[in-house]
């Protein structure tokens, strides 16, 4: 025989592979929140906003803990990617911090063979996360933020920062700002805030992707936070749970009111005062008005984008049950993660939208 060694090796590998294939498990942690909504089974894959990704991980884990057979996998790839992939039909639902533009809505409607609906599932604040040796508390106004992220303010002891923080000694460290490399709803909300409140100082417009003249880029809220974590002098904008996870300080930001800290209560207050629903029926999309926001001024809701009808009945049922859970029982998980529960008016609308998903 000419192949003894190769054949033997191949057989051993095959047996090994089969053994491996038999011994894995999806059974990880269990959860504690209640589920009064009922169960469905099936599997869903989703992508989108990294802003809401920590909430999504918590929800999918809790829901799967209560409903065995429900396999929902959410990956944070950025609101832009979520919307694109949803429109292309490669994922079942998307998470996004911003509502779709007309061409994106058209593609999504086409994918759904009907209508794609958007409804908020959580609210939170975009924290200004920094990591500077020698600074433990920081106030930043919109114009200062504009200077920092556009590269006109280069060191931490610049005059503008001193003006925001009277009496605080600031080190001369170089500022290293991090912005998002991918299409990000967080970028869109942050830049809308700057455009509204920094006036002509903010020259980049507002969108999911901007042409940043300075700073470094990283993928995902995770990426920018990781960058700041490792860099002395780093600063970025990301959902506050990323700062909490990494014990990084966040700045107090001034909107139309005074410098405000990022707390759940401040975010709720901001959503109540600054968010209005503009969609109708099951489309619960809305607008943020930063000039009206009190409380923490860079607050936003984050949305889920689903089809009104799915051809797969099991998928439709699972989506309906999952999102009904998310906007009702699931809201209790918001606080510990640094998000804010949705105000009741939005909960009612979102619940109706989630319940309306059929096959």
């Amino acid at each position, binding site marked *: 025989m*000419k192949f003894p060694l*190769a054949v033997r090796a191949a057989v051993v590998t095959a047996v090994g592979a089969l053994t491996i294939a038999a011994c894995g498990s*999806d059974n*990880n942690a269990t959860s504690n929140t209640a589920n009064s909504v009922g169960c469905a089974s099936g599997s869903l*894959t989703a992508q989108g906003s990294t802003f809401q990704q920590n909430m999504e*991980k918590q929800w999918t884990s809790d829901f799967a803990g209560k409903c065995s057979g429900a396999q929902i996998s959410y990956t944070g790839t950025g609101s832009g990617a979520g919307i694109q992939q949803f429109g292309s039909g*490669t994922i079942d639902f998307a998470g996004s911090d911003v509502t779709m533009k007309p061409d994106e809505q058209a593609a999504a409607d086409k994918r759904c063979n009907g209508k794609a609906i958007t409804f908020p599932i959580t609210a939170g604040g975009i924290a200004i996360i920094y990591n500077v040796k020698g600074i433990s508390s920081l106030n930043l106004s919109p114009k200062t933020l504009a200077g920092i992220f556009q590269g006109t303010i280069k060191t931490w002891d610049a005059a503008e920062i001193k003006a925001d923080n009277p009496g605080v000694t600031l080190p001369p460290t170089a500022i290293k700002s991090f912005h998002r490399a991918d299409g990000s709803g967080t970028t869109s909300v942050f830049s809308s805030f700057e455009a509204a409140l920094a006036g002509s100082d903010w020259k980049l417009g507002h969108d999911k992707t901007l042409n940043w003249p300075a700073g470094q880029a990283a993928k995902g809220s995770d*990426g920018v936070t990781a960058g700041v974590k490792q860099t002395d002098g780093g600063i970025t904008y990301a959902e506050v749970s990323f700062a909490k*996870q*990494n014990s990084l300080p966040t700045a107090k930001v001034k909107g139309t009111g005074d410098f405000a800290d990022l707390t759940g209560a401040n975010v709720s207050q901001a959503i109540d005062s600054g968010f209005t629903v503009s969609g109708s029926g099951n489309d619960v999309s809305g607008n943020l008005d930063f000039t009206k926001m009190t409380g923490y001024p860079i607050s936003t809701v984050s949305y889920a984008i689903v089809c009104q009808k799915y051809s797969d009945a099991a998928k439709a049922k699972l989506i309906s049950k999952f999102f009904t859970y998310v906007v009702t029982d699931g809201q209790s998980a918001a606080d510990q993660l640094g998000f804010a529960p949705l105000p009741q008016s939005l909960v009612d609308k979102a619940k109706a939208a989630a319940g309306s998903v059929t096959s």
Partner: protein
Amino acid sequence: MSTLTATGLRTGVLPRWGLAGAAAGAVAVTVALFALTPFQGTVDFIVVAAVLMVAAVSVTSWAVEGRRRAKDRLATSAALCFLALTLTPLVFVIGYTVKEGIKRFNGNFLTHSMAGVGPISSGGGVYHAIIGTLEQVLVASAIAVPLGLLVSIYVTEYAGGMLATSIRFLIDVMTGIPSIVAGLFVLAFWVLALGQGFSGFAGGLALAILELPIVVRSAEEMIKLVPASLREASYALGVAKWKTIVRIVLPTAASGITTGIMLAIARVIGETAPVLLVVGNNDFIHTNPFNGPQSSLPLFVFEGAGSSSAFDVQRAWAAALTLVLIVVVLYVAARVLTRRNALNGR
């Protein structure tokens, strides 16, 4: 006298202790330098000491042995330095991967998926990613190996025609495809244009594009190594060409071809870029490669590398260790096969 010295016939020779003495002197100077000036750091110390040692040895040699020998000693020292420079990253890359990866590398990690595990929890594992990688590589090899073998046979045994030459050229072209472009093609064509969506099979397709040229070239080399005398003997006995190839040439080259295939698989198993684009992502164990997103081991490491969560990073290191272990095992097995092959007279 001095002329003779210059030609090196009657120069002095640096005694054994000369080298050691020069080196020790250099280290002493470095210590003094670091004590007296603001220079600090272990790396700086090593670098400065090394530079001074090389300089000291060369200068001493020049003084005692003359220019030619000094240049020779300089070259030797430089080569040794470059050797150290090569081994250093090896030690640090593999060493650090093992050091960090071993922290979470256990049975639990290897047999559980990331279902329900978020960045703030410490549990979870890479089982789903291992299955994904194995299936994707299996799909890739199922396409690339038979096709590659057939192509390499055509190119070597039926060589000479225009088709054979152009195919060899095309295979050369294929080796140059950046892995991300292969992924981009499968994304645009298979996933989107044909509407097949993310799947392990799509990942396998992209990997096959990368694996095929490697298989063809290594199989080609091995088949070419089969002595012509073997073939001629077979023809002389009246055996058909195809039988000669199948029964004589291939079995003779089998070991080498197997090695080549193993190395191709080892190359392709660690590819992230093509898989990143077309396989989607799935925290759950998904064993159907033809339908639905899967995970993959290199993809898992990539996602973890960009994460700010310490748990994610820990898991990424353990996954990296798993990946490196698989690749090293394949390489070592290929080496062992080659040596056995060589021992048998090839």
